[in-house]
């Protein structure tokens, strides 16, 4: 059973803080993804990685960065959190062909 875990279910941060969201998968998947999920907008891809130390920008990378030092771990970093980054963040992983992505439970981030 594929397991994708995210470090926090709920997070409250202040404007300007640096925020780290961690994602770990235990199925040796090559691809990992970070999305934000907003009502009426669906899932929007922030960044993805297809190998260790590799990363590619998604559709909305501004204000975010990522790190993938180990195959199983993919971190999303908000360098200076802003209120418009309040959202649900979903991590996902998949094998080489990303047609089936396995999702984590999500982290609901509130920036005040």
């Amino acid at each position, binding site marked *: 059973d594929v397991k994708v875990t995210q470090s926090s279910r709920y997070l409250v941060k202040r404007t300007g803080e640096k925020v780290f969201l961690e994602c770990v998968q235990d199925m040796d998947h090559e*691809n990992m993804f970070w999305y934000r999920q907003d009502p*009426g907008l*669906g899932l929007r*891809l922030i960044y993805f990685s297809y190998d260790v130390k590799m990363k590619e920008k998604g559709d909305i990378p501004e204000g975010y960065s990522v790190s993938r030092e180990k195959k199983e771990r993919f971190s999303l970093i908000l360098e200076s959190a802003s209120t418009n980054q309040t959202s649900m963040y*979903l991590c996902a992983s998949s094998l080489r*062909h*990303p047609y089936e992505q396995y*999702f984590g439970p999500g982290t609901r981030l509130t920036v005040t």
Partner: protein
Amino acid sequence: AQRVTQPEKLLSVFKGAPVELKCNYSYSGSPELFWYVQYSRQRLQLLLRHISRESIKGFTADLNKGETSFHLKKPFAQEEDSAMYYCARLSGGYNKLIFGAGTRLAVHP
């Protein structure tokens, strides 16, 4: 830009009624399309993919290239079908999925 459009934010039906969740995509050769579902308090998960042409939980989806659509259908809705449904397609580079905005299905008793 490749797009996936789900025109309905909410679809509300009674138990036993037929369901059709609409999905349209921008034309691009031979797309690979999927439906993902998120039940209340559960993770987003794959429901079905067009390439497998299977029926999952009574749901089917047929790719119509002429209408650039991939609507999700079920002949008789059940209360446990209530969830958020997302249509998605592989991007041209085959590295990522593009999701629609989602449709919330509410099945009433």
